């Protein structure tokens, strides 16, 4: 085995006093050899990002301090370096890529100049040589037409192209180590697949060691050579990818891997005979964009969308960001007024009803949102949130509280917690509260707009189970919006695939997953990370 490019030994990072634990990371050791991709996996709060930041020497000063350990870059201890020396090492010997490609790039600077900036700081190349190096590196990350792209601004690029620019900037000086902190989390699956492919290819070509931080086991299965699993700031398990995924030794690793939803849908009882509760007919949502300086143009966020959901059925609406799936959800919940078409709730068209006429229909459709941190008012107690709806519709306060207590029990929370405020709950618990709030209205239709996308994988599984459970218990028609094929495979009876505002494919989950018809659906399925890997099938079992 060759000498490791990065060797982290017994790293301990202390949290400030009065935090929920003493150390952010404790006694963490692992190594990255040249040409190797090491994935650090863990849920939020596991200390994986803190580890990456410690290696980069970018821990927030005075808040997080390294208490013990060594971080060796090619045998050089980074912890003994002065800030000035670290500045020289970052960029030249360690390249970095972050999660959000939009905020990591300066919006008022041409992308070529941003890549050249690295060269400007670390080398003494002439203007012409610099430009050539930038063009070369842009070509190597497969950016189309580098000659043209070098002079554009970040907002003119797509998310995937921006991330390529970030990678180009990270690689322009041929660093020995590349640190990628959730680099594909903010990207669509298709783009994610391309970026992962690019990283694999670059590693082969340049023999760079890659430290890849992620929460997604699909990504791990796709690119990692070795895996480091972290929990509560400690390394619970590490080893070769196949070993860890197939033969996990630690119970926590097993739980994590088992929680990854499978891409093969389980058998589900048919609800084809149940009455249709929700139907959209030729639903259109058109936004007018541009104006002033640009030419006015129309954006069809939803174009001729026809859906139908039966009682007790979970209909998955799958698509990438910008596909119009959320627009459809918001139209159905009547948070926005559709431009055209009909929304039939048990035969009654609510698409164009005014505030007053709509009111009786309000309680029949309830919605659960993606972001559990923003979907509850931070200044009102959980009890107030859950009882708000029923009280609006004339229920007396005592009765509403009694119902809220029952619902809290139903979603697996302590009924006595009603007096508490949202910040006292975790993300998963807040999502449970949101489900309870929706159920308090006794709805017939539940719209779930990416309800588990912001949650850790183990919590995600529990919340999915809860949603499926309330569907059965209350015989709800559920419209489940998601970008995650794995999630859709597990909980949906039928699936609708949306692309650019239009429905491109529709069918039972089993049929769509077994034999996707539309070219877009096929492409979407092909880009799902770890699609060839069956999670949770351990060798000893």
């Amino acid at each position: 085995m060759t000498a490791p490019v990065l060797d982290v030994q017994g790293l301990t990072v202390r949290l400030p006093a009065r935090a929920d634990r003493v150390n952010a990371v404790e006694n963490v050791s692992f190594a990255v050899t040249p040409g190797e991709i090491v994935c650090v996996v863990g849920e939020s709060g596991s200390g994986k990002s803190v580890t990456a930041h410690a290696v980069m020497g970018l821990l927030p000063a005075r808040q997080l301090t390294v208490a013990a350990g060594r971080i060796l870059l090619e045998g050089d201890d980074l912890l003994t370096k002065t800030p000035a020396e670290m500045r020289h090492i970052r960029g030249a010997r360690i390249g970095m890529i972050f999660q959000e490609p939009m905020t990591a790039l300066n919006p008022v600077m041409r992308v070529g100049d941003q890549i050249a900036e690295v060269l400007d700081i670390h080398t003494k190349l002439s203007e012409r040589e610099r430009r050539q190096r930038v063009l070369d590196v842009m070509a190597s990350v497969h950016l189309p037409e580098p000659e043209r792209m070098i002079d554009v601004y970040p907002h003119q690029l797509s998310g995937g192209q921006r991330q390529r620019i970030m990678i180009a900037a990270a690689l322009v000086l041929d660093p020995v180590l590349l640190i990628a902190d959730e680099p594909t989390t903010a990207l669509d699956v298709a783009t994610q697949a391309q970026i992962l492919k690019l990283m694999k290819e670059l590693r082969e070509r340049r023999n760079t060691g890659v430290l890849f931080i992620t929460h997604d086991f699909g990504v791990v299965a796709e690119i990692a050579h070795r895996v480091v699993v972290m929990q509560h700031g400690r390394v619970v398990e590490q080893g070769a990818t196949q070993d860890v995924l197939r033969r996990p030794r630690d119970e926590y690793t097993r739980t994590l891997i088992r929680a990854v939803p499978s891409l093969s849908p389980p058998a589900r009882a048919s609800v084809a005979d149940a009455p249709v509760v929700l139907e959209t007919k030729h639903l259109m949502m058109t936004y007018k964009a541009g104006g002033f300086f640009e030419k006015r143009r129309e954006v069809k966020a939803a174009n001729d969308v026809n859906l139908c959901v039966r009682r007790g059925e979970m209909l998955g609406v799958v698509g990438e960001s910008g596909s119009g799936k959320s627009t459809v959800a918001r139209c159905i919940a009547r948070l926005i007024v559709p431009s055209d078409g009909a929304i039939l709730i048990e035969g009654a068209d609510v698409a164009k009803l005014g505030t007053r006429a709509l009111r009786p229909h309000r309680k029949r459709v309830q919605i659960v949102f993606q972001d559990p941190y923003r979907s509850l008012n931070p200044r009102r107690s959980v009890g107030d949130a859950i009882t708000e709806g029923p009280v609006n519709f004339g229920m007396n306060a005592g009765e509403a509280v009694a119902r809220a207590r029952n619902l809290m029990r139903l979603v697996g929370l302590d009924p006595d917690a009603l007096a508490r405020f949202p910040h006292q709950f975790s993300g998963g618990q807040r999502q449970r509260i949101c489900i309870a709030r929706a159920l308090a209205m006794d709805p017939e239709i539940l719209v779930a707009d990416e309800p588990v996308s912001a949650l850790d994988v183990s919590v995600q599984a529990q919340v999915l189970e809860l949603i499926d459970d309330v569907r059965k218990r209350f015989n709800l028609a559920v419209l489940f919006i998601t970008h995650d094929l794995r999630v859709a495979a597990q909980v949906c009876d039928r699936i609708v695939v949306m692309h650019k505002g239009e429905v491109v494919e529709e069918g039972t989950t089993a049929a769509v997953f077994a034999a996707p018809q539309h070219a877009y659906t096929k492409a979407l399925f092909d880009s799902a990370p770890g699609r060839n890997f069956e999670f949770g099938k351990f060798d000893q079992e």
Partner: protein
Amino acid sequence: MTESAGAPAEIGATLFGHWRPLAARYPFVVVAAIIILVFVLAAAFAPLLWTTEPLALNPLQRLKPPSALNWFGSDQFGRDVWTRTVYGTRVSLIVGIAVAVLSISIGLFVGMLAGYIRLLDGIVMRVMDGVMAIPGVLLAIALVSLSGASLVTVIIAITVPEIPRVVRLVRAVVLTVREEPYVEAAIAAGTRLPQILIRHVLPNCVPALIVQATYVCASAMLTEAILSFLGAGTPPEIPSWGNMMAEGRAFFPIAPRIILFPGAALALMILAVNVLGDGLRDRLDPKLARRV
């Protein structure tokens, strides 16, 4: 990584808790609060603070330097400067607080309507732009000269130019809050507009408004002094720092203290209120505090 998303919720809980760390972290804020408290007590108990009658003329004691009888000396009519400075605190505080309360209340109401009702937004904001285009002091002078000098007129005249800034602030908060999923959830739960505004939008405006109120208060006290100095403010029979300075202006070369004492009191008060406002902002808006 700590869970930063939970931070805004703790604002209310910690505003009045943990005084000791607050005093250690913001010593100037605590000093400012004490100064303001002293001024408030002085205004409330003015007759007990070894003062005489603020309007009592004493021709024999004209332009006397500070002494045991007149702590801050006396002015050109022999009135006690100490007494008048202490009584002047009343005018400043009344004007500052009244203007802050009035402009915040009116601005809050108008701002919420403008932010939430699209139809009103354009009209209301153009009117506000119009009011903002006129310099505040000029507008106040015009209003006072139209309706005659009295404390109430002065308060109204200072309040009007302050309103647009509050409206803009409230509207900006409303525009961000109305996009929050919890507001959409409330709409989906059939909550009516007035309730949405009171339950969900108003509480989110409060921190910003408390901070704004301190700035309005300080600027109102200053404007009152300016108006009085220009002779368009409180009538001469009410001692205020502004008209004390105006009257003492002519005697500045021989008795600078006549201007000095009310001037120093005004500067100290406004500084204290502004420092308190900065402290509250740091406390109520953690995002901004961290940036500093």
